[in-house]
């Protein structure tokens, strides 16, 4: 491979790492909220549950919907 192409590839990779990294930092609170919204209250206080809820539930959404005018 010619050195210029090599440099272009290398820069492309660096750029990919930078952009995904920064993108993750920006999306982090959103993703956290999403995973917390789908969690059963039990999972919230379970420290072994990190990102993926053990019991998926739409309970939070239903409660929020019920409370929309309360």
């Amino acid at each position, binding site marked *: 491979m010619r050195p210029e192409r090599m440099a272009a590839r290398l820069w*492309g990779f660096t*750029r990919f790492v930078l*952009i995904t990294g*920064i*993108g993750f930092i*920006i*999306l982090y*609170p959103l993703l956290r909220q999403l995973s917390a919204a789908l969690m059963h209250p039990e999972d919230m206080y379970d*420290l072994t549950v990190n990102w993926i809820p053990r019991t998926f539930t739409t309970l939070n959404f239903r409660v929020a919907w019920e409370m929309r005018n309360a």
Partner: protein
Amino acid sequence: MMRRPPRLSMRAQKSLLGLLFTLPFILGFGAFLAYPFVQSIIFSLSKLTIVPTGYELDFVGFENYRHALFVDPRFRQVFAETAVTMLTQIPVILIFSFFAANLLNQKFPGRALARVIFFLPVVMGAEITLKMQQADYMQQAMSLSESGLIPLSVLQSFLVNLKLPLGFVNFIFEAVNAVPVIIRSSGIQILIFLAALQSIPGSLYEAAHMEGATSWEAFWKITFPMISPLLLVNVVYTIVDSFTAPDNVLLDLIKDTAWSGAGFGVSTAMSWIYFLLIIGLLVLTFVFVSRGVHYET
């Protein structure tokens, strides 16, 4: 004799146009801001007591300013902290947003998505993001358990044990902690820089390339001067943005002082001290930055 409308010189026409563009602000300021603006000056110079019919003002001169600066235990410290944070964050935000704009200006697959994500903090609104982070008690529980690949405290003691100076290690950790804040408050600045980069005609680069300029030279001789007007805009925007940020501790202190502290007079005096700092900073920016700004045409 026929009457003709008076002819304006080009210069006068241009300044009239400029005035026209600032008119919405002037009208809005006159209608909604001028009155509270003047009133807050009066408040800051008087002692305000709430009476059943409203409030009463006793003129006390600069007593409130004296109280804010020399009596209030927290104001000076919070004021200095806010000023230092602002002054350190502004250059970092500007450099980061310029760097990010350069990244997003290049061609790569998924560019549109990347641009959307970088602008997302603005769409969500800083306040909402902040509320979300505060409401995230999951995260607080997590930070107690210190999960993750390498717990931060272990990393910190490792670096200290390497005989690196403690101040240096703390600086690194503070810098790393500030990264999300910097990134999330650069959305608008990235957008402005991106627009500036795209407004540079490609022919300039082509000509420079033909004449044998390297990319480094082209950056400093073409890109930098061409974006410099918008650099000034971004400096001003960043200063004002930090002034009105929802996580501004000084503003919280001012609110607390008004409702549960030394009262309205001292609170408005504090806001005026803060406001004068911002105004001073903006004047300095205009004096020093606009000297280096290059205007095409």
